[in-house]
Every structure is written in structure tokens, then in C-alpha cells.
């Protein structure tokens, strides 16, 4: 037993830094300068840790894995019983947490600029949103998975409530109500798996899964059903999508950036766990595919009906969640890479659109396509950013959305399901129409004459343009050189398909 314990120093930092920042920011409450320094330094620290951290594990119980031969090992890639509550930090986790921490920094900078009161409490919730996403993407045991999903959903309600509008309070209340339902469902699923396999560690449970025992099949199916329910809830897939769209639409647009990032990471993490645990069950992938297709189509159709740009984006985020899960649900290496890459791209281009939406706010007339017009004349760069975001979301080259959608289309064709490729194309085209309906009305339609006493708005902060420029750069970078991101995703896809017990 010559191996050293691989308890990575960096993994606890992804949890501890946001918690400490949240506590400190709450204490600081409304001391603007101290809040700014604490929040920015903490976000930067998370970015630095995500870049510098090596890949490896963190075991909470710390004992070595037991080999089938009776020996012990700390090497997780060897077949053994890990028994531990463990976190894993690999290439997928690195790119996901790096992107999430960069977005956290941008969101924090914009929140500091735009909020007038309760800044400390609000920004602390943003840090906890990041933390819940980091937990779920790194976790390899049922306890932490459940805790991550539960904490995440409660914090979402807090972030939405912070806007202080009646519509956001309703959205938060409904979302929290369903949190009780799906959280309990996930707990039941985990209890059933624990009962059937005897292990809380996901790798161990996969090895011990009694797939050939007919007497336990119904227990596994019920566990699968409850896990899918929590996946649907955490990611906002159909039929929970109206509640999730309410959440996205009624939060501040900059906060929606983090909320949708959290959702996408949860979709990826729970989706991969479902594939690893239940991928070989009959109809498991078909159920996941059906949910994905319904989410894509319903989301994009509902986006077409909206007359407020915020709500158009809210439904498009839901619809594009279906694209992410479609790739994962295919269960092939190409499909999973497509799904993961779509998640990365989706988070980036939707952030561009949400920041453009945030910019529209500063002109003082809301985001309705009926009341706002002529913004391009007053803020041409905001219009350019919105158009680039729309092109990327619609899968137009050379932007990042094109690269992931083409992989998804190829994966669907190779899977023998050309219908899925048609659905992906339909979603792309309808996304284009829905977005440009809003962009034309808000940015390009000639401005109506201002009414007497109308709110004139305030200048768009320079920081928002800086964040937009950085995100557009990433959009083009991943569009021109997709391998830069795909290199981080290959390992996860290969493991899920060929060695699912390895996290």
C-alpha cells in the first residue's frame, strides 16, 4: 500500500470559500465598499483555485477502498469498495466550476453596481447558489447529492425573493412547494437504492446494483422514477418548466445567469448519475429522451408566445435545457459530449442575452416588447451584444451554439433517430424567430415619442459592457476552437459509457 491519500486540498475550498463569503457578506450587510472587496476577492479566489487545482478525490471518511482481493487502495480507478462520502474533481468539474466562478464574478460586479440596499444578503445568496452547483457537479455519494439539490432549491427561492416584486414572491413560493415534493422523492429514491445495494457511495452502488434480480426490479424502477422526478425538478424540465420559467423570469436578469448555470450543472450531474446507475435498465434512456424532447419543444413554443424579453429568455433557457439532456439521454460517447458541450455553451450565450436584457432595464421602461423600442440608437453596443447572443443561441456559425448543436445532430443520426435531429433543428430555428421578434421590437423598431413624465432611465454601467465583451469572446472562442472545451469533456463521457463505476 504505497499510494498516498488523495484528499485534495482544493475540493473543500469550493464549499468553504462561498460559505465564509456568505457569512461575512451577511455581517457586512450594507457596507458597500467592504462588500465589494469581500465579494470580488472571494470570486477571484474561486477562479484561481479552479484553475490551479489538480484532479483527484476528497474523502470525508478518509478510509481506503477495499479491493475484491482483500487488500486496500486509495486509487479510485481500481475496482474496489470505496465506502466513502466522496467528491471528485476532474476535467468536467474543472471547466464547469471555472465557468461558474467566472460568471459569479460578473454577477457580483453587476449586483454591486445596480443594487441600492440589502446588497450583502443578496450577494451572499449568489455565493451559496454557486456552492450548491459546485457540490452537485463534484459529488459521488447520495447524501451530498441530496443535500446539494435541497440547498440549491431553497437558495433559488431566496435569490428570486430578493427582487421584491409580487410576481417573484409567487414564483418563489410555488418553487419551494415543489422543492418539498421532489426533495422527498429524491430522498426516497436514494433510500431505495441504499436498501437494495447497501452503499451510499455511487460507485459502490453501481457495482452492487442487482440488475439481474427480478424480485428487486420493481424497487429499482420506482427509485429510477423518483430520481428522474428530482432531475426534472432541479433542471426545470417539463412538466415543472412553468415554475422554473417563473423563477428565471422574475429574478433579476443578472441573478438568472447564476440560476441557469446552477440548473445546467444539476442537469448534467444528476443526468450522469442516472445514466451510470440506471442506464442499463430497459426504457430508462427512452424515458429520459421523452422528457428532453417534450421540454425542448414546449419551451420553445412557449417562448414564441411571450411579449416580454425576460420571459422569452426564461422559456428559451428551459427549452435549451432539453438540448443538454437530449445528448446525455442518448447515452453514447458522442451524445454525452454533445450534451455536456451544449451545457457549457448554453450557460455562456444565455448569459450574453441575459446581460443584454439587464442593460435594457437601465432605460427605465422594463423589458416588454410592447413598451420598449429604439434602444439600438441609444445603446448600439448593447444591440450588437444581443444580436451576437441570439446568433449563438440559434446555432449560427461561427458561434459556440453551432458547434454543440452540430454534435447533437450527428449523435442523434448515429443513434438511428433522425427525428431527434429534426427536433434539434426546429428548436434552433424557432429560437432564432423568438429572439429576433424581441430584438427587432426592443432594439431596431423606431422609438416612440417619449410621454410627458415618463421615466428616463439611467446610463448602462461600463462594467456590464466589460462582462458582455468577455462573454462574447468566450462565445466566439468556443465557436472557432471547440476542442478547447471538448478536451475537458471527453473523459467524463468515456467513463460514463465504459466504466460507469468510476466518477
Amino acid at each position, binding site marked *: 500500500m504505497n499510494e498516498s491519500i488523495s484528499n485534495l486540498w482544493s475540493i473543500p475550498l469550493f464549499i468553504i470559500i462561498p460559505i465564509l463569503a456568505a457569512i461575512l457578506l451577511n455581517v457586512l450587510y450594507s457596507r458597500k465598499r467592504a462588500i465589494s472587496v469581500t465579494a470580488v476577492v472571494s470570486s477571484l479566489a474561486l477562479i484561481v483555485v479552479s484553475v490551479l487545482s489538480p484532479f483527484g478525490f476528497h474523502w470525508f471518511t478518509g478510509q481506503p477502498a477495499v479491493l475484491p482481493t482483500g487488500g486496500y487502495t486509495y486509487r479510485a480507478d481500481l475496482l474496489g469498495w470505496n465506502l466513502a462520502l466522496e467528491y471528485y474533481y476532474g476535467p468536467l468539474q474543472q471547466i464547469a466550476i471555472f465557468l461558474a466562478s467566472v460568471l459569479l464574478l460578473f454577477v457580483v460586479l453587476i449586483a454591486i453596481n445596480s443594487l441600492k440596499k440589502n446588497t450583502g444578503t443578496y450577494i451572499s445568496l449568489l455565493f451559496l447558489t454557486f456552492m450548491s452547483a459546485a457540490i452537485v457537479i463534484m459529488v459521488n455519494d447520495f447524501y451530498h447529492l441530496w443535500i446539494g439539490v435541497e440547498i440549491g432549491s431553497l437558495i433559488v427561492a431566496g435569490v428570486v425573493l430578493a427582487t421584491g416584486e409580487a410576481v417573484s414572491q409567487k414564483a418563489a413560493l410555488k418553487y419551494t412547494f*415543489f422543492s418539498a415534493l421532489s426533495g422527498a422523492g429524491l430522498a426516497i429514491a436514494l433510500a431505495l437504492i441504499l436498501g437494495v445495494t447497501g452503499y451510499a457511495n455511487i460507485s459502490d452502488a453501481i457495482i452492487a446494483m442487482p440488475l439481474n434480480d427480478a424480485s428487486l426490479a420493481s424497487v429499482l424502477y420506482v427509485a429510477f422514477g423518483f430520481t428522474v422526478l428530482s432531475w426534472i425538478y432541479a433542471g426545470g424540465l417539463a412538466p415543472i418548466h412553468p415554475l422554473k420559467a417563473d423563477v428565471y423570469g422574475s429574478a433579476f436578469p443578472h441573478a438568472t445567469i447564476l440560476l441557469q448555470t446552477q440548473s445546467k450543472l444539476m442537469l448534467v450531474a444528476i443526468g450522469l448519475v442516472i445514466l451510470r446507475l440506471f442506464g442499463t435498465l430497459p426504457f430508462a434512456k427512452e424515458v429520459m429522451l421523452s422528457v428532453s424532447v417534450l421540454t425542448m419543444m*414546449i419551451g420553445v413554443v412557449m417562448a414564441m408566445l411571450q411579449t416580454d424579453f425576460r420571459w422569452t429568455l426564461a422559456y428559451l433557457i428551459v427549452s435549451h435545457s432539453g438540448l443538454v439532456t437530449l445528448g446525455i439521454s442518448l447515452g453514447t460517447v458522442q451524445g454525452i459530449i454533445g450534451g455536456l458541450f451544449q451545457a457549457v455553451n448554453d450557460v455562456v450565450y444565455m448569459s450574453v442575452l441575459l446581460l443584454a436584457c439587464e442593460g435594457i432595464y437601465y432605460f427605465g421602461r422594463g423589458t416588454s416588447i410592447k413598451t420598449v423600442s429604439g434602444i439600438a440608437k441609444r445603446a448600439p453596443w448593447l444591440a450588437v451584444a444581443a444580436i451576437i447572443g441570439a446568433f449563438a443561441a440559434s446555432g449560427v456559425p461561427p458561434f459556440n451554439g453551432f458547434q454543440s448543436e452540430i454534435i447533437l445532430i450527428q449523435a442523434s443520426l448515429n443513434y438511428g433517430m433522425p427525428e431527434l435531429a429534426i427536433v434539434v433543428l426546429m428548436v434552433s430555428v424557432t429560437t432564432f424567430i*423568438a429572439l429576433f421578434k424581441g430584438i427587432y421590437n426592443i432594439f431596431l423598431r423606431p422609438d416612440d415619442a417619449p410621454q410627458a413624465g415618463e421615466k428616463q432611465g439611467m446610463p448602462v454601467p461600463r462594467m456590464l459592457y466589460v462582462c458582455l465583451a468577455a462573454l462574447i469572446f468566450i462565445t466566439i472562442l468556443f465557436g472557432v476552437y471547440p476542442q478547447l472545451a471538448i478536451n475537458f469533456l471527453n473523459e467524463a463521457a468515456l467513463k460514463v459509457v465504459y466504466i460507469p463505476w468510476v466518477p
Partner: protein
Amino acid sequence: MGSIDSLYDKVKRFVIEFTSGKGTSSAMTGYMTGELQTVAFIMILASFFRIFSVPLGIVLLAAVVGALFFFGPMIKAMERENSSGLNRVLFWVMIYFAVIIAVTLWG
């Protein structure tokens, strides 16, 4: 003349059914595109059944096309069913969960 008038009336009634209240051009465009999208989507869903049996897929596709002509426009119903009312979402969650369990358990 009578037949032209009645056709015009039918088309007018059909178009009015797409949206309630003041149908601005933007809203109307959205509803009409949404309707077309829904129709195409349901036809694709029906065609998925070719996986189980090609004749079943063809029959379902034909039935769906007939139903779409009979029941259209469906977009208002779709909008209603996708509202965020707690009862409605809870209802659909139960339906989904029942289908998932039924398909996996007895599939």
C-alpha cells in the same frame, strides 16, 4: 358569393381563435408560429412510434394529422396547460410520474 363569404368567415373565426384581446402583430406572429411548431412537433412525436412498429407509426401519424385539422388551433389550449398554476403543474407532475413508472415497470 355565399360560399366566398362563408369561407372568409371561417378563416376569420379560425384566426381570431389564436389570440384573445388585442392581437398586435407581434403577439399574433408568435401564436401562429407557435401553432405551426406545435403541429410539426406532434407529427414528429407520432412518427417516433415507428421504433416499435412502422405500421403503428403510419396509423398514428395519419390519425394525428386528422386530429390536428379537427381540433386546431391548439396553441391557446397549450398555453393554458403550460400556465404556472400550482394545481395544473401538480396535475401534470402526477401524470408524468405515473407514465414513467408505468412504462418502466410494465414496459
